[in-house]
């Protein structure tokens, strides 16, 4: 009997083996099919053909962070426009490939290889997220693939540049932004008491550090309460807001991502706290969200006076309605990416970064090598004509400075839009 069972078992194993074999071969066949032929391109011009520049990026298209995909759409829109109406870059069309990494670094590891090894892109522009970009930085640098204009305000990219020369940021960094708010508080509200809500990770702490450093000696006496949440938590911020309310602070410093910012602001008002001053970090401050808050509270002036920073133009500001840059932006979106909400700041930043991308590629001219493009982006940027950045902002890098955008401007909410005030400031 024993033997009989074993025989049944073993024949079953053969069938299992066959199943495994067939499965493996099927997948293998699919894989082999979709693997492109590696042409006879040399290492320096991978992804460049006579009439195409192939670039890639990673964005969360799925998962809890998928609202960031609007940045990618803004980028795509501009590349389509350049291809269709400008004949591409020096005669080459841009082929922009976005891969979904779901904001998970272990997925980004796969997608980065897919871009480099399977799609054989020339360079990666605008990939989103601190963790996802940090995770693959070594890979891109080892393979000497430019990882440029990453969408994250961490200061790693600028500070670590000597070690990771193929990686570069673009937007102003979070700590610098925190310092700008501190300067404004010291100037206008020297006696205020501040309550902080921040995301309990490096992103949130960068902002908090900026504020603390900016306030200097007065930080410990001015910041009287702190509350945190974790990325991925439910977006209800009512208990955090109640803790902060109890502190009696009259300034609310909100460091969140979209979703959390809406809940925090709604609760700050509806709980009866109604802090006299609200500083809101740029990431969670898009007009779309503030309008959402206003609608939820049912009071058109509930958010008046909320302060944030910006470095881009604002399609939601009536005063900028006739700005040629904003007009061009709206036309391009309407024509090439109608699924992007024009007043979503993510689409604006995406398109502005795409402009810088095209700028760099154009300046590389016919010398389209990875090394040359990297050198131009990281050490020779001097872009004064970005049609979506605030007038006066220069996207600039030198051999000693690898923070492309440093300047920002403060703005204050009024009924249904932001009104910029003050000069351009640099927090660094």
């Amino acid at each position, binding site marked *: 009997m024993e033997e009989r*069972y*074993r*025989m*049944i*078992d073993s*024949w079953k*194993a*053969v*069938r*299992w*083996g*066959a*199943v*495994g*074999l067939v*499965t*493996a*071969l099927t997948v*293998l066949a699919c*894989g*082999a099919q*979709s*693997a492109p032929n*590696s042409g006879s391109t040399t290492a320096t011009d991978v992804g460049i053909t006579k009439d195409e520049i192939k670039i890639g990026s990673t964005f969360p*298209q*799925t*998962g809890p962070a998928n609202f960031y995909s609007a940045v990618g*759409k803004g980028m*795509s829109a501009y590349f*389509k426009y350049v*291809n269709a109406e400008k004949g591409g870059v020096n005669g080459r069309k841009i*082929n922009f*490939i*976005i891969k*979904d990494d*779901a*904001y998970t*670094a*272990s997925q980004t*590891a*796969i997608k980065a*290889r*897919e871009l480099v*090894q399977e799609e054989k892109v020339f360079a990666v522009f605008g990939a989103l997220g*601190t*963790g996802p970009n*940090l*995770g*693959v*930085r*070594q*890979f891109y640098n080892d393979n000497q693939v430019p990882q440029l204009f990453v969408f994250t305000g961490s200061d790693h990219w600028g500070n670590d540049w000597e070690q990771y020369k193929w990686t570069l940021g673009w937007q102003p960094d979070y700590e610098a932004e925190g310092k700008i708010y501190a300067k404004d508080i010291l100037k206008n509200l020297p006696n205020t008491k501040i309550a902080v809500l921040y995301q*309990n*990770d*490096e*992103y949130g*702490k960068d902002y908090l550090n900026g504020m603390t450093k900016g306030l200097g000696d007065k930080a410990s006496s001015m910041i009287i309460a702190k509350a945190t949440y*974790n*990325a*991925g938590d439910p977006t209800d911020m009512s208990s955090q807001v109640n803790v902060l309310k109890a502190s009696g602070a009259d300034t609310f410093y909100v460091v969140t991502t979209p979703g959390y910012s809406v809940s925090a602001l709604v609760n700050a008002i509806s709980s009866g706290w109604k802090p006299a001053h609200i500083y809101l970090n740029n990431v969670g401050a898009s007009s779309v969200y503030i309008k959402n808050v206003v609608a939820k509270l049912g009071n058109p002036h509930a958010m008046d006076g909320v302060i944030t920073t910006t470095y881009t133009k604002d399609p939601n500001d009536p005063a900028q309605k006739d700005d040629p840059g904003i007009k061009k932006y709206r036309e391009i979106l309407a024509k090439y990416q109608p699924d992007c909400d024009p007043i979503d700041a993510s689409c604006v930043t995406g398109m502005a970064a795409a402009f810088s991308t095209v700028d760099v590629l154009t300046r590389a001219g016919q010398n389209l090598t990875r090394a040359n493009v990297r050198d131009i982006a990281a050490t020779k940027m001097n872009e004064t004509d970005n049609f979506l950045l605030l007038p006066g902002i220069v996207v600039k890098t030198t051999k000693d400075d690898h923070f492309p955008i440093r300047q920002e401007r403060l703005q204050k909410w009024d009924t249904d839009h932001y009104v910029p005030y003050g000069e351009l400031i640099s927090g660094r």
Partner: protein
Amino acid sequence: MSRLKGLPIPVLIAAGLGAVVLFGIPLVTDTFFTFLFANVAVYVIALMGLNILTGYSGQISLGNGAFMAVGGYTTALLVHRLHVPYLATIPIAGLVTGLFGFLFGFPALRLSGIYLALATFALALSVTPVINNFDTFTEGHTGINMKPAHAPAILQLSDEQWLYFLSWGIAAVMFIISWNIVRSSTGRAFMAIRDSETAATASGVSLSYYKTLAFAISALFSGVAGALLAIVAAYVNPDNFSLQLSLNLLVGLVVGGLGFRFGPVIGGLVVVFLPYYSEKIATIQFSSFSLPAKPDIFNGILLLLILFFAPSGVMGLIMRGFALYNGRRTAVRSRAAPAEPVLEEK
């Protein structure tokens, strides 16, 4: 391992064929697919761990991603802080996580069904806050970069090939271990608990012992998988081990076939290749442009179809196919000798 000696020839042939396929993959595929298949091995190991807990012992777990986090961070921290060679960290990660799972098994003893699912759910949710809270030690959200793993010089393998052979080598060892566990009296006790706790207790199976053991073994497998994931991605951060990972594992195993020995293999392929291909399918072409629409919709549709038409997963479907085929054959044979009932796994 002594059990291997008594194996009859067909099993050895099957094993040989499997080995040939595994060795062949990196030779015929390109660098990227080799890397993808290395990832498959990682998930196969993780799913074998989940299979022991959920498939064989019937304890639903939404928290195996947290076990992977323990393994992943054990490896990353040992390499980063103590400069331990990364290969040596893999067994340590397995043991540490096994111990962690054993300890978690105690409170879990009192829970079953939906309550256990909730407790493990809480475990999955706690990963990010815990790691962020001890950020001076764990580097918090910034994560820990590890040096990319290179093959020993004599092997002359590319990084991707090395990761492939390393992870599949370990997966093969873990597969044999899990196979033997399932065949042993321990495995039968697990299945008895799954089928009826009352009956199992009446037959002298100690619920507390075997349930905590199931958690420990499952965690050990997950820890090894987590360590490998850290090595393969050369980076850990809390987002890698989010709730999404735990859910992906459960979905992968259910699609592959819960309680089947080869379920985790299919599941591993699903976890890695489903997002890859659904993104390809979902990619909309605008002239020279490609922008993925919503890959998750395709994922969802496919999963629904699989669960609707093959509720016991792909392996269940395959088994049904074999049963049909065998049924016809045995119907012919059974005239001579009536088929005996065969005790087997689900």
